[in-house]
């Protein structure tokens, strides 16, 4: 129980999927650090590779996909990419908790939540099952639910928000300190979403976790994450402290994405859709910048050369247009 929040270092990770057109990368040469005790949010549209990246943390990419290159170093576990069989099974759940996309629908409809909890405990060789149930009740109580009632319920007796909390409980109950949440609030109502985000933040702080949140919704990341990473076409195009990135985005895609969010006040015509559409696995350009087709700052070099990820203090941007002239006029303090 004296575990600490682990740090995670993803380095040069490439995940490919086998298709009739050969092996195509869904995630390409991604390097990302999750600092111990931080909440990192990954934002991307459909097909950006964000879920594939998250699955790589568990080394759970399913065929026809495979991790082709790179490493995922997790403190206390080593390189997850090298783990196999039993080792890997034990790491999942015990060290890494995962709340799947649509966790509302990932429960077994035939078993009560309590029985599923016991299954989880047995498969991980937990001796003190009573203790496990106590822990689960406590977690559920912490999230504002009646633990005993929930454990005795089948999934159809629980609302979407309640199931989502059950998913979070199952991810944490084995005392995992690295938690991955894939689209934790999709299909939930606004009020429930706000509630779940608050719970994620609080549980994160109380238990000392390292948390990764995957979402298509910048608002979700803005609410919970310390650090924000933006994915596009399998690449990380920008990352940095959430407030700084939102306050002064540098990559043209990040700028466009933030501009495309309908807001509650102000001139609605200021918000604009990004022209074009996100690339799919088959249409991602093989060389050069993945975003160039939709980019207003496109230059000749973008067609042929992959932009490097350049660090400037805590911020990292991969764009030729930015690389030449890093925007130094941004005063970060202003947004703190």
């Amino acid at each position, binding site marked *: 129980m004296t575990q600490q929040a682990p740090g995670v270092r993803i380095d040069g990770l490439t995940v490919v999927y086998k298709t009739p057109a050969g092996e195509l990368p869904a995630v390409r040469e991604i390097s990302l650090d999750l600092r111990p005790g931080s909440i990192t949010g990954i934002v991307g549209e459909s097909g950006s590779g964000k879920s594939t990246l998250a699955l790589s943390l568990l080394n759970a990419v399913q065929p026809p996909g495979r991790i082709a290159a790179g490493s995922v170093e997790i403190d206390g576990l080593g390189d997850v990419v090298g783990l196999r069989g039993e080792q890997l099974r034990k790491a999942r759940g015990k060290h890494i908790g995962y709340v799947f996309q649509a966790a509302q629908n990932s429960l077994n409809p035939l078993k009560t939540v309590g029985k599923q909890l016991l299954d989880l405990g047995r498969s991980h060789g937990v001796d003190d099952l009573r203790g496990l149930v106590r822990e689960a009740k406590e977690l559920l109580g912490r999230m504002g639910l009646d633990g005993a009632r929930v454990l005795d319920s089948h999934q159809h007796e629980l609302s979407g928000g309640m199931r989502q909390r059950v998913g979070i409980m199952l991810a944490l109950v084995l005392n995992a300190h690295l938690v991955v949440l894939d689209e934790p609030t999709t299909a939930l*109502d*606004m*009020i429930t979403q706000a509630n779940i985000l608050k719970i994620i933040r609080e549980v994160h702080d109380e238990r000392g976790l390292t948390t990764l949140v995957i979402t298509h919704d*910048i*608002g979700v990341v*803005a*609410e919970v994450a310390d650090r924000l990473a933006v994915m596009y076409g399998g690449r990380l195009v920008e990352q940095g402290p959430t407030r700084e990135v939102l306050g002064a985005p540098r990559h043209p895609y990040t700028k466009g994405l933030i501009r495309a969010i309908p807001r509650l006040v102000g001139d609605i015509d200021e918000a604009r*859709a990004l022209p074009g559409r996100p690339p799919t696995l088959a249409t991602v350009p093989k060389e050069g910048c993945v975003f160039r087709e939709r980019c207003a700052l496109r230059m000749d070099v973008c067609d042929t050369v992959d932009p490097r990820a350049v660090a400037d203090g805590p911020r990292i941007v991969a764009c030729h247009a930015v690389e030449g002239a890093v925007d130094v006029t941004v005063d970060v303090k202003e947004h703190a």
Partner: protein
Amino acid sequence: MITGTGVVKTFKQRGKVLGAREVRALRGVDFTIPKGGAASFIGESGCGKTTLGRIIAGLESYDEGEILIDGQSMSALKPKQRQPHFRKIQMIHQDPYSALNPTRTIHQTLYAPLSLRARQTGRSRSWIDERAAEVLSLVGLDPGTVLARYPHQLSGGMRQRVVIARALTVDPEMLVADEAVSMIDVSLRLGILALLKDLRERLGVSVLFITHDVATARYIGDDGELYVIYRGQVVERGAVDTVIADPVHPYTQSLLSAIPVLHGLEQPGEQPVTPLESLNESQSDEGCLFARRCPFRGERCTTERPLLRLGEGIPQEHACFYPERRSVIARPMSEV
């Protein structure tokens, strides 16, 4: 023009396990959508907004009340006689992936309703092709490239445009868009919203927008009306920007408070409202429907139901005994 007065809908379940159950989906709703006008229904899932939309589109019956389409009472007509009236109202569903037949090309999809129209109006076959190309251009698609394709060859945003084009083939007077952008990629959402607004302006089609995402409701146009629905009752109704900027009902305030704040870009509202407990359908129907969750409830609220009314110098209608303006929505940093 479409008006409804006192529309009531109750779903009855004859459950074998749980016994007979009644769900009051709509409890006497009034609405008016002028020709070429716009309205938006917002609320949590289960509030009855979709049911109301389906009733307006003629896909669902209602138990009490009256719906008039261009002055013609629907209750007075036999089902067969209602058809030509409801044809003027076309529905655009949430999921563009399941709304199109995957085995038909876009041409075939558009051909079916158009050939019916051609037969009714005695037009030639060449008119069908012309009209198919025309509706596709109206929704911003290039007929040359799209017509021969199957739905799976198009992106989500393009598919939703095809769905809208299909609705336009029958020259509707109103489009009912039920969560029409919630499954579209963030960077493309605005394009669809702008399209609906554009169709309104160019063709004079009225638009009914059903959503839980309040910010998107603004895109129907600033002359549009916003209806906030809670447990089958309209609790606040007024001009879109008025209700969003100065909500007076605690439920509307809770909904708006729950919208994620883009920290770094925005400053959260000063008086956010959080409901006391989560939505429970089995709560008693006595008094104000929101009373149990309302942080501001008074004596009167638990015994008497407030009706939607104007008054107390508030520009919008509200169903609350103690209406009060509260600053709940996030404002851009630049305005603070």
